[in-house]
Protein backbone atom coordinates (compact mmCIF):
# COMPACT_ATOMS: atom_id res chain seq x y z
CA UNK A 1 0.00 0.00 0.00
CA UNK A 2 1.19 3.50 -0.86
CA UNK A 3 -0.49 6.61 0.56
CA UNK A 4 -0.65 10.08 -0.92
CA UNK A 5 -2.13 13.22 0.63
CA UNK A 6 -3.23 16.41 -1.11
CA UNK A 7 -2.54 18.86 1.73
CA UNK A 8 -4.05 21.84 -0.07
CA UNK A 9 -7.52 20.27 0.26
CA UNK A 10 -7.14 19.49 3.97
CA UNK A 11 -9.80 21.09 6.19
CA UNK A 12 -7.99 20.18 9.44
CA UNK A 13 -10.68 17.88 10.79
CA UNK A 14 -8.33 15.39 12.41
CA UNK A 15 -10.58 12.52 11.33
CA UNK A 16 -7.61 10.68 9.83
CA UNK A 17 -5.62 11.02 13.06
CA UNK A 18 -8.49 9.53 15.03
CA UNK A 19 -8.69 6.58 12.64
CA UNK A 20 -4.97 5.89 12.14
CA UNK A 21 -2.79 7.79 14.64
CA UNK A 22 0.34 5.85 13.67
CA UNK A 23 0.09 7.04 10.08
CA UNK A 24 -1.38 10.55 10.26
CA UNK A 25 -0.68 13.58 12.41
CA UNK A 26 -1.53 17.29 12.14
CA UNK A 27 0.65 20.39 12.16
CA UNK A 28 -0.17 23.37 14.40
CA UNK A 29 -2.76 24.61 11.88
CA UNK A 30 -4.38 21.21 11.79
CA UNK A 31 -3.09 20.31 8.33
CA UNK A 32 -2.42 16.62 7.82
CA UNK A 33 1.11 15.24 8.17
CA UNK A 34 1.78 11.87 6.62
CA UNK A 35 4.02 10.01 9.10
CA UNK A 36 4.69 7.07 6.79
CA UNK A 37 3.62 6.51 3.20
CA UNK A 38 4.11 2.73 3.11
CA UNK A 39 2.57 1.48 6.34
CA UNK A 40 2.92 -2.10 7.54
CA UNK A 41 0.08 -4.48 6.61
CA UNK A 42 -1.40 -4.48 10.13
CA UNK A 43 -2.11 -0.75 9.69
CA UNK A 44 -3.80 -1.06 6.30
CA UNK A 45 -7.35 -1.42 7.61
CA UNK A 46 -7.01 1.73 9.73
CA UNK A 47 -5.57 3.65 6.77
CA UNK A 48 -8.53 2.65 4.60
CA UNK A 49 -10.82 3.86 7.36
CA UNK A 50 -8.90 7.15 7.53
CA UNK A 51 -9.22 7.69 3.78
CA UNK A 52 -12.94 6.97 3.91
CA UNK A 53 -13.72 9.29 6.84
CA UNK A 54 -11.70 12.25 5.55
CA UNK A 55 -14.27 14.98 4.83
CA UNK A 56 -12.19 16.42 2.02
CA UNK A 57 -10.98 13.38 0.05
CA UNK A 58 -7.38 14.33 0.86
CA UNK A 59 -6.04 10.80 1.25
CA UNK A 60 -5.56 8.46 -1.68
CA UNK A 61 -4.37 4.89 -1.46
CA UNK A 62 -2.65 2.80 -4.06
CA UNK A 63 -3.04 -0.85 -3.20
CA UNK A 64 -0.14 -3.11 -4.25
Amino acid sequence: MKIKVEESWCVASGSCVLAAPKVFDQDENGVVILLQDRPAPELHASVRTAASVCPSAVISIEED
Partner: protein
Amino acid sequence: MISIVDTLPRATTDTLAPDLSSAGRSAAAEWPVVIVGASVAGLSVAEALRRHGYSGEIVMVDSADGFPGDRPPLSKAALFPAGETTVYDVVPAIRREALAMSCIFGAAATGVDRHARLLRLADGRSLAYSDLVIASGVRPRAFPGSNHREPIEGLHMLRTAADAGRLRAALARGGSIAIVGGGVLGLEVAATARGLGCEASVIEQTPAGLAAKLGATLAQRLLDLHRAHGVRLEFGVEAVGFEAGQSGSGRIEGLRLTDGRVVPASDILVAIGCRPNVEWLAKAGLDLSDGVVCDPFGMAVDHIWAAGDVARIPGLTEEGRRQEHKQNAIDHGRLVAANLLAARAGLPLKRLEAVPYFWTDQFDVKIQFAGAYSPAAREMVVPVEGREGAIAVRFEVEGRLIGAATWNAPKAMTQLRREIELACLPIDAPKESIS
Protein backbone atom coordinates in the same frame (compact mmCIF):
# COMPACT_ATOMS: atom_id res chain seq x y z
CA MET B 1 -15.99 2.34 -14.96
CA ILE B 2 -18.83 4.80 -14.76
CA SER B 3 -21.38 4.50 -17.45
CA ILE B 4 -24.02 7.09 -17.97
CA VAL B 5 -26.77 4.74 -18.99
CA ASP B 6 -29.77 5.59 -21.01
CA THR B 7 -30.73 1.98 -21.40
CA LEU B 8 -31.21 0.81 -17.87
CA PRO B 9 -29.69 -2.33 -16.42
CA ARG B 10 -31.71 -5.50 -16.60
CA ALA B 11 -34.97 -5.80 -14.67
CA THR B 12 -35.66 -2.14 -15.05
CA THR B 13 -38.27 -1.62 -17.71
CA ASP B 14 -41.56 0.04 -16.97
CA THR B 15 -43.42 -3.14 -17.79
CA LEU B 16 -41.52 -5.14 -15.21
CA ALA B 17 -43.69 -6.88 -12.63
CA PRO B 18 -41.26 -8.27 -10.08
CA ASP B 19 -41.97 -11.70 -8.74
CA LEU B 20 -41.65 -11.55 -4.98
CA SER B 21 -42.83 -15.05 -4.25
CA SER B 22 -40.24 -16.94 -2.23
CA ALA B 23 -38.28 -17.85 -5.35
CA GLY B 24 -38.57 -14.23 -6.45
CA ARG B 25 -37.23 -13.03 -3.13
CA SER B 26 -33.93 -14.81 -3.49
CA ALA B 27 -33.71 -13.42 -7.02
CA ALA B 28 -34.35 -9.95 -5.57
CA ALA B 29 -31.07 -10.17 -3.64
CA GLU B 30 -29.37 -10.09 -7.04
CA TRP B 31 -31.01 -6.82 -8.01
CA PRO B 32 -28.84 -3.72 -7.73
CA VAL B 33 -28.36 -1.58 -4.69
CA VAL B 34 -29.93 1.68 -5.83
CA ILE B 35 -28.74 4.96 -4.33
CA VAL B 36 -30.73 8.19 -4.81
CA GLY B 37 -28.37 11.17 -4.56
CA ALA B 38 -24.83 11.26 -6.03
CA SER B 39 -23.32 13.56 -3.43
CA VAL B 40 -21.42 13.05 -0.17
CA ALA B 41 -23.69 10.49 1.48
CA GLY B 42 -24.45 8.51 -1.68
CA LEU B 43 -20.78 8.25 -2.65
CA SER B 44 -19.83 7.28 0.89
CA VAL B 45 -22.31 4.38 0.72
CA ALA B 46 -20.97 3.22 -2.65
CA GLU B 47 -17.33 3.38 -1.55
CA ALA B 48 -18.03 1.52 1.68
CA LEU B 49 -20.02 -1.18 -0.13
CA ARG B 50 -17.02 -1.87 -2.37
CA ARG B 51 -14.58 -1.69 0.52
CA HIS B 52 -16.58 -4.39 2.26
CA GLY B 53 -16.31 -6.55 -0.84
CA TYR B 54 -19.78 -6.13 -2.31
CA SER B 55 -19.37 -6.98 -5.97
CA GLY B 56 -22.99 -6.73 -7.11
CA GLU B 57 -24.49 -3.96 -9.16
CA ILE B 58 -24.70 -0.40 -7.79
CA VAL B 59 -26.93 2.12 -9.55
CA MET B 60 -26.73 5.77 -8.58
CA VAL B 61 -29.54 8.15 -9.54
CA ASP B 62 -29.43 11.93 -9.37
CA SER B 63 -31.76 14.60 -10.71
CA ALA B 64 -28.74 16.80 -11.43
CA ASP B 65 -26.86 16.49 -14.73
CA GLY B 66 -23.72 15.09 -13.14
CA PHE B 67 -21.99 14.64 -9.82
CA PRO B 68 -22.60 17.77 -7.72
CA GLY B 69 -19.40 19.49 -6.65
CA ASP B 70 -18.29 19.74 -3.06
CA ARG B 71 -20.42 22.31 -1.22
CA PRO B 72 -18.32 23.72 1.66
CA PRO B 73 -16.24 26.03 -0.60
CA LEU B 74 -19.43 27.56 -2.03
CA SER B 75 -19.80 29.97 0.87
CA LYS B 76 -16.07 30.60 1.15
CA ALA B 77 -13.31 30.53 -1.52
CA ALA B 78 -15.75 29.90 -4.39
CA LEU B 79 -17.22 33.41 -4.02
CA PHE B 80 -13.89 35.07 -4.84
CA PRO B 81 -13.35 36.18 -8.46
CA ALA B 82 -11.47 33.05 -9.54
CA GLY B 83 -13.60 30.90 -7.26
CA GLU B 84 -14.77 28.29 -9.77
CA THR B 85 -11.41 26.59 -9.54
CA THR B 86 -11.84 25.96 -5.81
CA VAL B 87 -14.85 23.68 -6.17
CA TYR B 88 -13.62 20.10 -6.27
CA ASP B 89 -15.35 16.82 -6.83
CA VAL B 90 -16.77 15.31 -3.66
CA VAL B 91 -14.80 12.18 -4.50
CA PRO B 92 -12.07 12.43 -7.15
CA ALA B 93 -12.95 10.86 -10.52
CA ILE B 94 -10.33 8.14 -10.19
CA ARG B 95 -11.91 6.92 -6.95
CA ARG B 96 -15.40 7.07 -8.47
CA GLU B 97 -14.36 5.06 -11.48
CA ALA B 98 -13.02 2.31 -9.24
CA LEU B 99 -16.57 1.87 -7.94
CA ALA B 100 -17.77 0.42 -11.24
CA MET B 101 -21.32 1.66 -10.82
CA SER B 102 -23.99 2.74 -13.25
CA CYS B 103 -25.05 6.34 -12.96
CA ILE B 104 -28.35 7.76 -14.14
CA PHE B 105 -28.21 11.54 -14.18
CA GLY B 106 -30.91 14.05 -14.98
CA ALA B 107 -33.51 11.64 -13.63
CA ALA B 108 -35.40 12.57 -10.49
CA ALA B 109 -36.72 9.77 -8.33
CA THR B 110 -40.47 10.29 -8.03
CA GLY B 111 -41.71 7.40 -5.95
CA VAL B 112 -41.12 4.03 -4.37
CA ASP B 113 -43.18 0.89 -4.43
CA ARG B 114 -41.90 -0.74 -1.27
CA HIS B 115 -43.62 -4.04 -1.77
CA ALA B 116 -42.51 -4.57 -5.34
CA ARG B 117 -39.14 -2.96 -4.53
CA LEU B 118 -39.31 -0.52 -7.40
CA LEU B 119 -37.98 3.01 -7.62
CA ARG B 120 -39.88 5.21 -10.03
CA LEU B 121 -38.14 7.88 -12.09
CA ALA B 122 -39.55 11.09 -13.54
CA ASP B 123 -39.21 9.80 -17.09
CA GLY B 124 -41.62 6.97 -16.34
CA ARG B 125 -39.09 4.19 -15.99
CA SER B 126 -38.84 2.00 -12.90
CA LEU B 127 -35.78 0.52 -11.34
CA ALA B 128 -35.85 -2.69 -9.30
CA TYR B 129 -33.69 -2.67 -6.19
CA SER B 130 -32.48 -5.18 -3.66
CA ASP B 131 -31.86 -2.34 -1.22
CA LEU B 132 -32.63 1.35 -1.69
CA VAL B 133 -30.53 4.09 -0.12
CA ILE B 134 -32.11 7.52 0.20
CA ALA B 135 -29.38 10.18 0.05
CA SER B 136 -31.36 13.00 -1.54
CA GLY B 137 -30.12 15.74 0.78
CA VAL B 138 -31.84 19.03 1.49
CA ARG B 139 -32.61 22.29 -0.30
CA PRO B 140 -32.74 25.83 1.03
CA ARG B 141 -36.00 27.16 2.44
CA ALA B 142 -37.41 29.98 0.40
CA PHE B 143 -38.09 33.42 1.83
CA PRO B 144 -41.69 33.29 3.07
CA GLY B 145 -43.91 35.16 0.71
CA SER B 146 -41.44 35.28 -2.15
CA ASN B 147 -42.49 33.78 -5.42
CA HIS B 148 -39.54 31.80 -6.63
CA ARG B 149 -41.22 30.77 -9.83
CA GLU B 150 -40.25 34.15 -11.14
CA PRO B 151 -36.64 34.64 -10.12
CA ILE B 152 -35.91 38.12 -8.87
CA GLU B 153 -32.59 39.57 -9.85
CA GLY B 154 -30.51 39.95 -6.73
CA LEU B 155 -32.45 37.47 -4.58
CA HIS B 156 -30.15 34.50 -3.84
CA MET B 157 -30.11 31.12 -2.20
CA LEU B 158 -26.96 29.03 -1.90
CA ARG B 159 -26.74 25.28 -2.36
CA THR B 160 -25.20 24.56 -5.76
CA ALA B 161 -22.20 25.68 -7.79
CA ALA B 162 -24.61 27.56 -10.09
CA ASP B 163 -26.03 29.47 -7.08
CA ALA B 164 -22.46 30.31 -6.03
CA GLY B 165 -21.69 31.54 -9.56
CA ARG B 166 -24.57 34.03 -9.43
CA LEU B 167 -23.59 35.21 -5.98
CA ARG B 168 -19.94 35.53 -7.05
CA ALA B 169 -20.95 37.76 -9.96
CA ALA B 170 -23.08 39.89 -7.64
CA LEU B 171 -20.32 40.31 -5.06
CA ALA B 172 -17.82 41.12 -7.79
CA ARG B 173 -19.94 44.17 -8.68
CA GLY B 174 -19.35 45.47 -5.16
CA GLY B 175 -22.41 46.91 -3.51
CA SER B 176 -24.09 45.54 -0.45
CA ILE B 177 -25.58 42.24 0.58
CA ALA B 178 -28.27 41.68 3.18
CA ILE B 179 -28.32 38.15 4.55
CA VAL B 180 -31.49 36.73 6.04
CA GLY B 181 -30.48 34.17 8.68
CA GLY B 182 -27.61 34.36 11.16
CA GLY B 183 -26.70 30.69 11.09
CA VAL B 184 -23.39 29.21 10.05
CA LEU B 185 -24.05 29.65 6.33
CA GLY B 186 -25.26 33.26 6.58
CA LEU B 187 -22.30 34.28 8.70
CA GLU B 188 -19.81 32.54 6.39
CA VAL B 189 -21.14 34.48 3.43
CA ALA B 190 -21.08 37.73 5.43
CA ALA B 191 -17.41 37.13 6.24
CA THR B 192 -16.60 36.31 2.62
CA ALA B 193 -18.48 39.39 1.37
CA ARG B 194 -16.51 41.64 3.75
CA GLY B 195 -13.32 39.99 2.53
CA LEU B 196 -14.34 41.09 -0.95
CA GLY B 197 -14.94 44.65 0.24
CA CYS B 198 -18.74 44.52 0.04
CA GLU B 199 -21.03 45.84 2.73
CA ALA B 200 -22.77 43.04 4.61
CA SER B 201 -25.75 42.94 6.98
CA VAL B 202 -27.05 39.87 8.77
CA ILE B 203 -30.66 39.77 9.97
CA GLU B 204 -31.48 37.03 12.45
CA GLN B 205 -34.85 36.67 14.14
CA THR B 206 -33.70 34.95 17.34
CA PRO B 207 -31.90 37.29 19.73
CA ALA B 208 -29.25 34.69 20.59
CA GLY B 209 -28.55 33.32 17.10
CA LEU B 210 -25.94 30.59 17.06
CA ALA B 211 -25.67 30.37 20.87
CA ALA B 212 -28.11 27.45 20.84
CA LYS B 213 -25.76 25.56 18.58
CA LEU B 214 -22.24 26.62 19.63
CA GLY B 215 -22.78 27.71 23.24
CA ALA B 216 -22.77 31.30 24.48
CA THR B 217 -19.00 31.85 24.63
CA LEU B 218 -18.13 31.03 21.04
CA ALA B 219 -21.32 32.54 19.64
CA GLN B 220 -20.48 35.84 21.37
CA ARG B 221 -16.88 35.75 20.14
CA LEU B 222 -18.08 35.10 16.62
CA LEU B 223 -20.50 38.02 16.62
CA ASP B 224 -17.80 40.30 18.06
CA LEU B 225 -15.50 39.22 15.25
CA HIS B 226 -18.14 40.07 12.67
CA ARG B 227 -18.78 43.48 14.23
CA ALA B 228 -15.03 44.19 14.32
CA HIS B 229 -14.93 43.49 10.59
CA GLY B 230 -17.78 45.89 9.91
CA VAL B 231 -20.65 43.44 9.45
CA ARG B 232 -23.95 45.03 10.44
CA LEU B 233 -25.80 42.62 12.74
CA GLU B 234 -29.53 42.96 13.36
CA PHE B 235 -30.57 40.28 15.84
CA GLY B 236 -34.00 39.71 17.32
CA VAL B 237 -35.75 41.25 14.32
CA GLU B 238 -37.43 39.54 11.44
CA ALA B 239 -37.11 40.23 7.74
CA VAL B 240 -40.57 40.39 6.22
CA GLY B 241 -40.05 41.29 2.60
CA PHE B 242 -37.91 43.03 0.09
CA GLU B 243 -38.01 46.23 -1.84
CA ALA B 244 -37.57 45.70 -5.53
CA GLY B 245 -38.21 47.53 -8.71
CA GLN B 246 -38.91 50.93 -7.15
CA SER B 247 -36.53 52.49 -9.63
CA GLY B 248 -38.11 50.53 -12.46
CA SER B 249 -35.20 48.11 -12.78
CA GLY B 250 -36.87 45.06 -11.20
CA ARG B 251 -33.78 44.64 -9.06
CA ILE B 252 -33.56 44.17 -5.31
CA GLU B 253 -33.11 47.46 -3.50
CA GLY B 254 -33.47 46.58 0.15
CA LEU B 255 -34.74 44.25 2.83
CA ARG B 256 -37.77 45.22 4.89
CA LEU B 257 -37.83 44.40 8.62
CA THR B 258 -40.79 43.86 10.98
CA ASP B 259 -40.10 47.18 12.67
CA GLY B 260 -40.59 48.99 9.38
CA ARG B 261 -36.96 49.77 8.68
CA VAL B 262 -35.41 48.92 5.33
CA VAL B 263 -31.83 47.67 5.10
CA PRO B 264 -30.53 48.97 1.77
CA ALA B 265 -29.00 46.16 -0.29
CA SER B 266 -28.25 45.39 -3.89
CA ASP B 267 -28.47 41.65 -3.18
CA ILE B 268 -30.22 39.48 -0.63
CA LEU B 269 -29.16 36.00 0.42
CA VAL B 270 -31.84 33.89 2.05
CA ALA B 271 -30.14 31.46 4.44
CA ILE B 272 -32.93 30.45 6.79
CA GLY B 273 -32.32 26.73 6.86
CA CYS B 274 -33.16 23.82 4.63
CA ARG B 275 -35.92 21.34 3.93
CA PRO B 276 -35.22 17.66 3.38
CA ASN B 277 -35.85 16.42 -0.17
CA VAL B 278 -38.52 13.87 0.77
CA GLU B 279 -41.60 14.90 -1.22
CA TRP B 280 -40.91 12.11 -3.70
CA LEU B 281 -41.33 9.61 -0.84
CA ALA B 282 -44.77 10.86 0.20
CA LYS B 283 -46.54 7.64 -0.74
CA ALA B 284 -43.80 5.21 0.31
CA GLY B 285 -45.17 4.72 3.81
CA LEU B 286 -42.07 6.00 5.63
CA ASP B 287 -41.87 8.22 8.70
CA LEU B 288 -41.05 11.61 7.16
CA SER B 289 -41.61 13.73 10.25
CA ASP B 290 -38.03 15.07 10.14
CA GLY B 291 -36.40 14.00 6.91
CA VAL B 292 -36.35 10.21 6.68
CA VAL B 293 -36.61 8.96 10.24
CA CYS B 294 -34.43 5.88 10.71
CA ASP B 295 -33.49 3.49 13.48
CA PRO B 296 -29.98 3.73 15.00
CA PHE B 297 -28.75 1.42 12.20
CA GLY B 298 -29.78 3.77 9.40
CA MET B 299 -32.76 1.69 8.30
CA ALA B 300 -36.11 3.35 7.54
CA VAL B 301 -38.02 0.13 6.81
CA ASP B 302 -36.91 -3.25 5.46
CA HIS B 303 -34.62 -2.76 2.46
CA ILE B 304 -34.82 1.04 2.62
CA TRP B 305 -32.02 3.01 4.26
CA ALA B 306 -31.18 6.70 4.46
CA ALA B 307 -27.97 8.68 4.85
CA GLY B 308 -26.73 12.27 4.97
CA ASP B 309 -28.56 15.56 5.39
CA VAL B 310 -31.90 13.94 4.57
CA ALA B 311 -31.60 11.23 7.25
CA ARG B 312 -32.37 11.35 10.91
CA ILE B 313 -30.42 8.57 12.61
CA PRO B 314 -30.19 8.61 16.40
CA GLY B 315 -26.57 8.76 17.53
CA LEU B 316 -24.72 8.49 20.80
CA THR B 317 -24.78 12.09 21.92
CA GLU B 318 -28.04 13.46 20.59
CA GLU B 319 -31.52 12.09 20.44
CA GLY B 320 -31.21 11.76 16.71
CA ARG B 321 -31.46 15.39 15.74
CA ARG B 322 -30.98 15.60 11.98
CA GLN B 323 -27.55 17.00 11.10
CA GLU B 324 -26.63 18.88 7.95
CA HIS B 325 -22.86 18.54 7.90
CA LYS B 326 -20.38 16.85 5.68
CA GLN B 327 -18.69 14.54 8.18
CA ASN B 328 -22.12 13.33 9.24
CA ALA B 329 -23.01 12.46 5.65
CA ILE B 330 -19.81 10.41 5.34
CA ASP B 331 -20.37 8.64 8.66
CA HIS B 332 -23.96 7.82 7.73
CA GLY B 333 -22.85 6.39 4.40
CA ARG B 334 -20.33 4.09 6.06
CA LEU B 335 -22.89 2.93 8.60
CA VAL B 336 -25.59 2.20 6.05
CA ALA B 337 -23.27 0.25 3.74
CA ALA B 338 -21.98 -1.92 6.59
CA ASN B 339 -25.46 -2.58 7.95
CA LEU B 340 -27.03 -3.22 4.56
CA LEU B 341 -24.48 -5.99 3.96
CA ALA B 342 -24.77 -7.29 7.54
CA ALA B 343 -28.55 -7.50 7.18
CA ARG B 344 -28.18 -9.57 4.01
CA ALA B 345 -25.76 -11.91 5.70
CA GLY B 346 -28.00 -12.25 8.74
CA LEU B 347 -25.34 -10.67 10.95
CA PRO B 348 -26.02 -8.23 13.81
CA LEU B 349 -26.22 -4.57 12.83
CA LYS B 350 -24.10 -1.80 14.37
CA ARG B 351 -25.56 1.43 15.69
CA LEU B 352 -24.35 4.88 14.74
CA GLU B 353 -21.46 5.64 17.06
CA ALA B 354 -19.66 8.39 15.18
CA VAL B 355 -19.51 11.58 17.25
CA PRO B 356 -21.12 14.43 15.28
CA TYR B 357 -18.55 16.92 13.98
CA PHE B 358 -18.57 20.06 11.87
CA TRP B 359 -16.41 23.03 11.06
CA THR B 360 -16.92 26.54 9.76
CA ASP B 361 -14.33 29.01 8.45
CA GLN B 362 -15.03 32.73 8.94
CA PHE B 363 -12.48 35.52 8.43
CA ASP B 364 -9.24 34.02 9.77
CA VAL B 365 -10.96 31.78 12.29
CA LYS B 366 -11.71 28.08 12.11
CA ILE B 367 -14.49 27.04 14.45
CA GLN B 368 -14.91 23.32 15.06
CA PHE B 369 -17.61 21.57 17.00
CA ALA B 370 -17.99 17.99 18.15
CA GLY B 371 -20.64 16.08 20.06
CA ALA B 372 -23.72 17.85 21.34
CA TYR B 373 -24.58 21.15 22.92
CA SER B 374 -27.20 21.33 25.62
CA PRO B 375 -28.30 24.45 27.49
CA ALA B 376 -28.16 22.24 30.59
CA ALA B 377 -24.46 21.57 30.07
CA ARG B 378 -21.77 23.31 32.10
CA GLU B 379 -19.70 25.42 29.70
CA MET B 380 -16.01 25.54 30.57
CA VAL B 381 -13.51 27.66 28.67
CA VAL B 382 -9.99 26.24 28.43
CA PRO B 383 -7.12 28.29 27.00
CA VAL B 384 -5.06 26.61 24.29
CA GLU B 385 -1.33 26.91 24.86
CA GLY B 386 0.90 28.41 22.25
CA ARG B 387 -1.83 29.80 20.01
CA GLU B 388 -2.81 33.38 20.46
CA GLY B 389 -6.51 33.94 20.91
CA ALA B 390 -7.31 30.25 20.57
CA ILE B 391 -9.73 28.65 23.02
CA ALA B 392 -11.51 25.40 23.59
CA VAL B 393 -14.91 25.16 25.25
CA ARG B 394 -16.06 21.99 26.98
CA PHE B 395 -19.72 21.11 27.53
CA GLU B 396 -20.20 18.77 30.48
CA VAL B 397 -23.29 17.21 31.94
CA GLU B 398 -22.81 15.61 35.36
CA GLY B 399 -19.08 15.57 34.80
CA ARG B 400 -19.37 13.79 31.44
CA LEU B 401 -18.02 15.51 28.33
CA ILE B 402 -20.89 15.57 25.81
CA GLY B 403 -19.53 18.17 23.41
CA ALA B 404 -16.78 20.67 22.70
CA ALA B 405 -16.07 23.64 20.48
CA THR B 406 -12.77 25.22 19.50
CA TRP B 407 -11.68 28.56 18.09
CA ASN B 408 -8.56 28.27 15.93
CA ALA B 409 -7.40 25.17 17.79
CA PRO B 410 -7.62 22.20 15.42
CA LYS B 411 -5.19 19.93 17.24
CA ALA B 412 -7.00 20.47 20.53
CA MET B 413 -10.24 19.54 18.74
CA THR B 414 -8.84 16.21 17.60
CA GLN B 415 -8.07 15.35 21.24
CA LEU B 416 -11.52 16.51 22.33
CA ARG B 417 -13.20 14.38 19.70
CA ARG B 418 -11.38 11.35 21.06
CA GLU B 419 -12.36 12.28 24.60
CA ILE B 420 -16.05 12.71 23.71
CA GLU B 421 -16.07 9.39 21.94
CA LEU B 422 -14.68 7.64 25.01
CA ALA B 423 -17.07 9.48 27.31
CA CYS B 424 -20.15 8.75 25.22
CA LEU B 425 -19.59 5.20 24.00
CA PRO B 426 -21.59 2.71 26.04
CA ILE B 427 -19.25 0.88 28.42
CA ASP B 428 -20.22 -2.52 27.06
CA ALA B 429 -19.41 -1.51 23.48
CA PRO B 430 -15.68 -1.80 22.90
CA LYS B 431 -14.51 0.71 20.34
CA GLU B 432 -14.52 -1.10 17.08
CA SER B 433 -14.74 1.09 14.05
CA ILE B 434 -16.62 0.19 10.92
CA SER B 435 -13.89 0.19 8.32
